[in-house]
């Protein structure tokens, strides 16, 4: 790589391409022709291969569709320019040096291009994922309208099932999991004193896979014959016999999963190799710890959902018998593989939130995090235990009987490290000087709601209770208490907390508090009654139900509209403050962690000089304590390359 041409004066964006070059330069114009090209390849490839291998019929819709869902997105990415650097490298041409034209955003348009700056990517992530949050929340409101009365009013069961499946899939794969990746993207390099992520181009690729995954999931809904309607869990063999839209589901999950693996890998490498001098593991903010453990979970567990979706896809497209009992397949194998990812996934969806809460509570209570080391260790404990409980989703599935009790015990034991966290947060607040800003309100809302959700998890972990409650609205209540009352509340806390850092402007505190109260009340009114109807006998995933549940369901539906409306307050606040809010100072919360020690928004390379970390991140109230020294003379000698590289 000696051939890398070092242009010293290429700091500004390269001159805009003109004439034909506009069509060949990376960007949306190129997308316009490269995507159809790859679409064509996606059709030609299977047909030609089948012709060569003499398989008939040559034209097989489901096969072509599957290949299509791989090639077309690649075409899109190539057109956009995500692969440019690697393509240059691969073809042996001189690669363009990092000229920083891909850094920083100067106008809103820059957010629609490939950008390698972790701060830009972070915002791209958060905004995109919130878009999917709104869409899938909107789906929820649609099917809640249907559920307001028994019988079928607006949607037939097919459409209803599609709405439920995509509601959950979008929420999980395109909101909760990636929004944490987005927030992490923005703050982690800052928090550990690095200039960017370890692999900025991979980072850009991870982001651009997301809208693809989302677009595929949503397109699948409107496919002729019906969208994916087997629930987000997509159990075989039902799932292998669904209308064509199901293929979109299987493939959309793959793209989102790939994105999440690559981001996780990037986080891990960044956290391991790019911490500022002095930033030992025991001096890392807990958010970094949380993302570190989450990323380990992602890297290890996510391939399993990829596998599970491949198998059902193959069962459908290639008529394999992985899970077809008639051909010697084992039906429950799917569930084991699926939950081996999807249980750890629920911790993927909550651990980063735990990190956010630790930051917010410490800063807003002006006290060090209570039991910092145990907090970090309990994250690790959850990580390890999380891999040993997957079959608690299968207590009634008819799996091997001897597995039930061990799985019950491990599931229960997870309450212990989680409890350590809850109690430590409470102890952090104890005797503090608490400021009830919006992030803190959401943190408190999280604490109380997550405990309810966690406790209903304990009910479910008890096999006999689960036998009664499984697959009823009790589960739906549990899901939303941990995912909405848990994860979403932490996300709101995080978004408000870092809003000044990310946008350089302050949000409106009164609207923020209004948003919190509306959400908190709407949330409880919507989801608390679900415990009751579930235990009483209402199964989940039904468009029609017994008349005795009519009143409560009407109540829930009305409450859910209120909950949806509360989101509008948030949207107004965010959009308005981003455009017109008062300019934020660098450190409005007087926090100690590194991201607050730079301007808001941070300079293009985060730190002009590498900060020197000298102490713990949460030493509030300790006289003279310092977390890091900025602008210190560069430590000599700077280790610009790790030993063993090159």
């Amino acid at each position, binding site marked *: 790589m000696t051939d890398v041409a070092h242009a010293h004066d290429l700091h500004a964006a390269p001159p805009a391409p003109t004439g034909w070059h506009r069509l060949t330069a990376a960007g949306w114009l190129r997308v316009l022709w490269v995507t159809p090209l790859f679409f064509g390849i996606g059709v030609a490839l299977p047909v030609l291969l089948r012709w060569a291998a003499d398989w008939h019929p040559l034209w097989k819709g489901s096969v072509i569709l599957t290949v299509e869902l791989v090639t077309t997105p690649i075409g899109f990415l190539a057109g956009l320019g995500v692969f440019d650097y690697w393509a240059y490298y691969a073809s042996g041409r001189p690669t363009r040096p990092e000229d920083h034209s891909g850094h920083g955003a100067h106008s809103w348009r820059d957010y629609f291009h490939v950008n390698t700056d972790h701060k830009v990517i972070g915002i791209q992530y958060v905004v995109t994922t919130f878009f999917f949050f709104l869409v899938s929340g909107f789906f929820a409101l649609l099917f809640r309208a249907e559920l307001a009365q028994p019988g*079928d009013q607006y949607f*037939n*069961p*097919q459409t209803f*099932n599609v709405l439920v499946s995509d509601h959950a899939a979008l929420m999980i794969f395109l909101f909760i999991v990636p929004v944490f990746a987005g927030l992490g993207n923005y703050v982690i390099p800052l928090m550990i004193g690095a200039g960017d992520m370890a692999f900025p181009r991979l980072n850009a690729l991870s982001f651009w896979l997301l809208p693809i995954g989302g677009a595929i999931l949503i397109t699948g809904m409107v496919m002729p014959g019906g969208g994916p*309607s087997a629930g987000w869990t997509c159990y075989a063999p*039902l799932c292998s016999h669904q209308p064509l839209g199901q293929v979109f589901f299987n493939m959309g999950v793959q793209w989102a999963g790939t994105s999440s693996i690559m981001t996780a890998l990037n986080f891990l490498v960044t956290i391991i190799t790019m911490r500022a001098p002095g930033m030992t593991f025991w001096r890392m903010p807990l958010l970094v710890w949380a993302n570190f453990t989450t990323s380990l979970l992602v890297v290890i567990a996510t391939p399993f959902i990829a596998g599970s979706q491949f198998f059902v896809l193959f069962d459908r497209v290639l008529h394999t018998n992985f899970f077809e*009992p*008639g051909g010697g397949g084992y*039906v*429950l194998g799917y569930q084991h593989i699926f939950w081996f990812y999807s249980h750890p996934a629920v911790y993927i969806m909550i651990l980063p939130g735990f990190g956010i809460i630790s930051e917010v509570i410490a800063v807003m209570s*002006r*006290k*060090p995090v*209570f*039991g910092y080391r*145990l907090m970090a260790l309990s994250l690790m404990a959850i990580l390890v235990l999380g891999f040993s409980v997957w079959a608690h989703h299968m207590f*009634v*599935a*008819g799996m091997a*009987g001897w597995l*039930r009790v061990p799985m019950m015990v491990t599931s*229960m*034991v997870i*309450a*212990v490290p989680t409890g*350590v966290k809850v109690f*430590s947060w*409470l*102890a952090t607040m*104890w*005797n*503090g*000087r*608490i400021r009830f800003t919006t992030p803190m309100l959401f943190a*408190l809302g999280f604490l*109380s709601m997550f*405990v309810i959700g966690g*406790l209903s998890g*304990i*009910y479910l972990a*008890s*096999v*006999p*209770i689960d*036998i*009664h409650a*499984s*697959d009823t609205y009790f589960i739906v209540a549990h899901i939303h208490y941990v995912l909405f009352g848990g994860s979403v509340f932490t996300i709101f806390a995080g978004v408000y907390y870092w809003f000044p850092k990310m946008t350089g402007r302050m949000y409106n505190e009164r609207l923020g508090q209004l948003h919190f109260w509306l959400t908190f009340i709407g949330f409880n009114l919507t989801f608390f009654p679900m415990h*009751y109807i579930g*235990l*009483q*006998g209402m*199964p989940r*995933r039904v468009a029609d139900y*017994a008349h005795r549940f009519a009143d409560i369901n009407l109540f829930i539906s009305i409450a859910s509209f209120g909950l949806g409306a509360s989101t509008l307050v948030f949207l107004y606040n965010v959009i308005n403050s981003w455009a017109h809010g008062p300019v934020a100072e660098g450190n409005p919360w007087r926090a100690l962690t590194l991201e607050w020690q730079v301007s808001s928004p941070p300079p293009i390379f985060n730190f002009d000089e590498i900060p020197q970390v000298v102490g713990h991140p949460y*030493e*509030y*109230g*300790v006289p003279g304590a310092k977390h890091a020294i900025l602008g210190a003379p560069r430590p000599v000698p700077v280790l610009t390359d790790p030993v063993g590289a090159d």
Partner: protein
Amino acid sequence: MRRGSIIQLTAIGLVAGAICTAVALAIPWLPVAGGQEAGRIHFVYWFTTVIAICVFSVVTAVLVYSVWKFRAGPDDDSDGPPTHGHTQLEIVWTAIPAVLVTAISIVSAIVLAQNGHAGTNPLVIKVEARQFAWKFTYPNGTSFGTLTLPQGRHVKLDITADDVIHSFWVPQLSQKQDAVPGQHNFIVITPTHIATYPVVCTELCGLGHALMRSQVDILAPADYEKWVAQGGTASSGPPGLAVFQQNGCAGCHTFKPALATGNVGPNLDNLAQEAKQANRGALDAFIKESIVKPQAYIAPGFTDAMPHTFGTQIPPDKLQQLVQYLAKGA
């Protein structure tokens, strides 16, 4: 910690606990326990609830107390005391939850074992689930679309499925078990009440999942014997009705004579009209074709969602009964 704050904290905790207890007791959370197993499960439920209320009250007490006492004034820029941790405290709050969840686990495991006991002479009934109907087969070989059980006897259900996964659940009996194709699963039920309860399919199994219902009639032992002796009089209607019910037609179709309310497929009350519109021969022939080969003609406004397998699934004589039954209703 001062004495005063301990008292205040305890008071808040007690109030929170009292409110939770009131909520737990005032609302009838669980359906009546119609069987021995359900009774035991309810016990585990209440056992867990007591622990859950304690945990929640402790958390709420500390939370409310902190919110109340540790609020910083608007111009207060001071920091809290720099406490970093407290080893004993941390050990305590690791140990206590560990003990509590162990207790729940032990109780659960015992109940699970008890609920699996079917005695030496259980009544074994085969349960077969298919989109979207239940079929219950008795030891003497007769089968029905609804379940009839004797009170007070251990019943062992041998559950399987023909197509996709379903799940057998009777809320009042609390026992639930997935019906998995290619596999036999078992649950034990010992009914204690003479009553009729719904059978609900709780696993998403396709378009008719919401309407995949049946019922369980629990009879006094003597009545049950009588019922068996008479060869089971469950389906009192025309023979076609039983076929209709056993094949899950109600999951997708509305048909008044059968009290069916599905609307995935066309309303079968209007069949005569439909047949005319379709113009595919006589009414009987049209109905038969629609069942055996639904893809031959797709009713306007619908998709080809009706299973293509009924032709092989329903024996010819039953099919004939079904066609007649539908033709008469139309």
